[in-house]
Each structure stands twice: as C-alpha cells, then as structure tokens.
C-alpha cells in the first residue's frame, strides 16, 4: 500500500467528550486522515478492465482483417459496426429493441417485486412455506422454457407470452434466494430482538429484512441472466418483433455480423444490470471488511 507510506503532517485528536461518565483511563482516539488517493488508484478496477477489453477488440480486428476465416465465419468489430449501421438504416432495430426492452422490464420488475415479497413471507412463515413448497419445487425443477408452447396457446405470440417467460425465468431465482436469506438469519440476532421485547413486525423490519438483503441482491443478479434467456428463446419460438427474433433471422440467413449486434445489446443489458446491482450490494455491504 503505497498511500500508507507517507505520513500526512497533521494528526487530529478527537474524543475529548465533556462527560463525567467517560472512561477515565481510555486514551483519546488519535486519527490521521489518509492521504487522498490518485485518480487512477480510485478507478483501478475500471481502468484495468477497460485496457484488457480494448486490447481484445484490437486483436480481434487484426485477426479478422487477416481473413483467415470468411466474414460469415468470423466477422470483425468493424463488420459488426457496419451491420449496426445497416440495421439502423432499415429502421426495424428501434422497434425490436423497444419490444424486447418492454418484455424485459415488465417481466423482470414483476419477478423482482413478487419474488422478494413472497420470498420474505415464505421464509418467515413456516406454514405458508409448507403450503407452497410443492409448487415451488415443481416449477423450479422444471425447465420453464418448455412451458413456452403452452403459454403461446394461452396468451398468443405477442409480447405477453415473452413477459410470462421472462417472469417465470427470473421469479424463481429471486424467490428461492430471498427465502434462503430469511431462513439463514443468525438465530442469536433473533433472540436479541426478542430479548429487547421487539414485536414480530419489528423483528422482521430490523433483523429479517436487512439480514436478507445480500441474498436478495444475489437473487436479482442471477435473475437477469434467466430473464435474458427468456427473451431470446421466447422470441425464437415465435414473435413478430424483438432482438431475439432479429438474431434468429440473421442466423438463418447467414448474416453473422447482425447476430453479433443483437448479442452485444443483450450482453450490454446484462453487464449494466450486473454492475448496478454490484453497486447496490457494495452500498448495503459497507459493513463487511474490504477484501
């Protein structure tokens, strides 16, 4: 740690509290502010990641330029950018994105909300869990994708069928993790709350909820992956619009560059969400010693 080596000139002495009750022999707490970190130290993680990604893209472009393999087999980054331009010019990309985006946002949000609430309730109330456990186990053990033909029969090939499949994919990841979070609470903390005379609701609010936040966030993170799979597979099986459909058609017509465009949109969505959830996790995990 280079930043610890140099000692700043001023030491601040605090803790001179004016109360007779103060521990007489406790020494005052001496704190010395750490020197401010340089910009590249604070953003080290981002910076290193950025460099490796740029290096990868450059190498990819060079390999593609060598044309060892055809453009159909391995399009380079420049081909993908060109395909993106074509897609924009054709005018359908915006609609595809809007449809897929809608499917994702509605399906995922519903899954998150219902999954967290139901997970908390089922984790907390034993009998409610006994009642619903058979259904949860049944659906969790089934690959939900196979329900797609049924869902299409029930709600058609429009946006609704994709919302359902996204929901079913994401919901169980959130539900099961939230339940696990509530059930793995430290029993000594529950005893503590009881000892202070906390009501059921207070125990729930002060112990169960904050205690399961890390599990909930893990569930949400896993759910993004399931939701994106739902979109693509749902649209491949049948959809008038959407990124998954666009990619499927591109694949059927040997337009590899276009498939990569779709792939990047899906991946970027996943990356942004993962990153946002990580930020949130760090916010709630401030108490965990930094590794």
């Amino acid at each position, binding site marked *: 740690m280079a930043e610890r080596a140099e000692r700043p000139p001023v030491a601040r002495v605090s803790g001179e509290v004016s109360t007779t009750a*103060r521990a007489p022999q*406790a020494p005052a707490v001496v704190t010395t502010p750490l020197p401010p970190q340089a910009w590249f130290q604070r953003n080290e993680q981002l910076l290193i990641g950025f460099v490796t990604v740029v290096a990868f893209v450059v190498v990819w472009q060079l390999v593609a330029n060598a044309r060892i393999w055809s453009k159909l087999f391995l399009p380079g980054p420049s081909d993908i950018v060109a395909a993106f331009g074509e897609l924009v010019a054709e005018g359908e990309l915006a609609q595809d994105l809007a449809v897929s985006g809608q499917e994702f946002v509605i399906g995922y949000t519903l899954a998150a909300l219902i999954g967290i609430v139901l997970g908390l309730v089922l984790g907390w109330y034993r009998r409610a869990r006994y009642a619903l456990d058979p259904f949860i186990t049944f659906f969790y053990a089934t690959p939900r994708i196979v329900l797609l033909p049924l869902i299409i029969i029930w709600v058609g090939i429009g946006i609704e069928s994709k919302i359902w499949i996204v929901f079913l994919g994401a919901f169980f990841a959130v539900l099961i993790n939230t339940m696990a979070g509530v059930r793995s609470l430290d029993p000594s903390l529950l*005893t503590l709350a*009881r000892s*202070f*005379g906390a009501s059921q609701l207070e125990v729930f609010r*002060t112990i169960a909820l904050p205690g399961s936040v890390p599990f909930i966030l893990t569930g949400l993170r896993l759910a993004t992956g399931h939701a994106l799979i739902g979109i693509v597979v749902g649209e491949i099986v049948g959809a008038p619009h959407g990124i998954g459909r666009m990619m499927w058609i591109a694949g059927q017509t040997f337009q590899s560059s276009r498939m990569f465009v779709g792939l990047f949109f899906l991946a970027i969505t996943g990356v942004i969400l993962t990153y946002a959830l990580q930020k949130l996790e760090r916010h709630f995990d401030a*108490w965990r010693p930094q590794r």
Partner: protein
Amino acid sequence: MKLQARDVVIHHRRQRLGDMLLAVDGATLDIAEGEFVAIVGPSGCGKTTFLNAVDGLLPLTSGSLSLDGRLIDRPGHDRALVFQQPSLLPWRTVLGNVLYGLEILGTPRAEARQRAQRFVDLVGLSGFEESYPLELSGGMQQRCNLARALAVDPEVLLLDEPFAALDAQTRETMQHELLRIWNETRKTAIFITHDIVEAVYLADRVIVFTARPGRVKEVLRVDIPRPRDLRVKWEPHFVEIQSRIWESIREEAARDPLAAIA
C-alpha cells in the same frame, strides 16, 4: 427483594431428540436491589438457562420468577441481557447498535441518540461510533454489547458469561471496567460465569449451582470492600473465598462426569 426465584424448574426442549431435558430443578434465590450476584457452577449446569428464564425468553415448567413482585413471563424493558456472543447487528454501526433497544422502546430520535452517545462514552468507545462491529476487536464488541443493554436503562442487568470469549488480559480490563460502570449505575446485576476469580472479584454474593439439573447449592458472601482494585485478587482473603467456591464446584463436577471442573 428485587428479584425472587421460587422453586424454578425449567425443561429444555430438544426438538431433534424428541425429549425435554431437565435443566434447572428447583432453584430458589433472592436478589436485593442494587446487588451484584454471580452464579457459578459446573458447565452444563443450567446457569444460562436460568438467566434466559429471568430475561423471559424461556417458559418455566413450574415455580415462579418475579421482579418487584410482578411475575416474569416475557422479555421486558426492566431487564436487559448482555449476551455471551456480542450478537451485534453487523450492518449497524456501534452507535446504531446501542440505539437498537431504544428504537424498540420507542424513545424519540434525538433523545435516543443522546442517550446512546452517553453510553458509548461510558463504555469507552468514544471515537468508534461510526465503526462497524466487524471492524472492532472482541473486547470492543463486548463493550458495545454492554452499552446496548445499559442504554435502555433496565432495572436488572443480566450478564451471560460476557467475557468468556476474550483473552486473559482483555478479560481483566473488562472486569475492572464493568465494576467502574456498575459503580456509576448501581443496577441490580446477575452475572453468569465459569471463572471463579471473576465471580469473586465482581460480586457481592456468589451463588454456586449444582451439576445438572441446576439447583442452588451454596451462597457465599464476598465481604471485600469496594471499590476493588484488580490487585485484590492476590489477597489471602480473596484466595480463601475463591478456594471455598472451587471445592464446592469440584464436588459437583465429580458427581457429574460430563461436567468438567469450573
């Protein structure tokens, strides 16, 4: 009498084994207002079970426990338990943890903060208000645990081997600190321990429990004047009381091969 225990019988529910273990069998005990009582006994003798019942966490099979003449049947704000494990909420800071009981009590925010700060200072954690428990040493965590119990201003302070997990030096410091803090508040206190020296150093009376099922075997008055310096532990009279308790516990431990000495 502040606290009265009459023929207290407690069974411990063992769900997995499908039985009820007789943990405390007829404990009778009186504790006066402002008195510091230590309970010692062979391990597994039901000391902690008894203390949890006083806190209202466990139901009695028979007998009665009463505080100021009122029967104890549930946890209440007139008692506060200092746990063997610090049991701090890891996501709350030191100040937030000390505030916990006051929040449950419904103390107005500003007043609660002031009170919490006072007890943080009292236990010597000034300057660590914004630290999280995992950033503290074991001794500091126990100070926080103690401050949290004191902050709700209980009438009886229940301490369940609070220093058992600390290293020998920290334990001595904490014993001394506890006496200093107790001296300022003069709360009625019940202190469970398996450390005889600790019991004699802290208490006005030491109560020896029998091997399981626990019962009051013997009560010894510690007539060593306060304030007590840590050096008192080396004085002949202190050692004499200590060895009497030791013999008493050893008899019990010999009766129960499962319970090790002290």
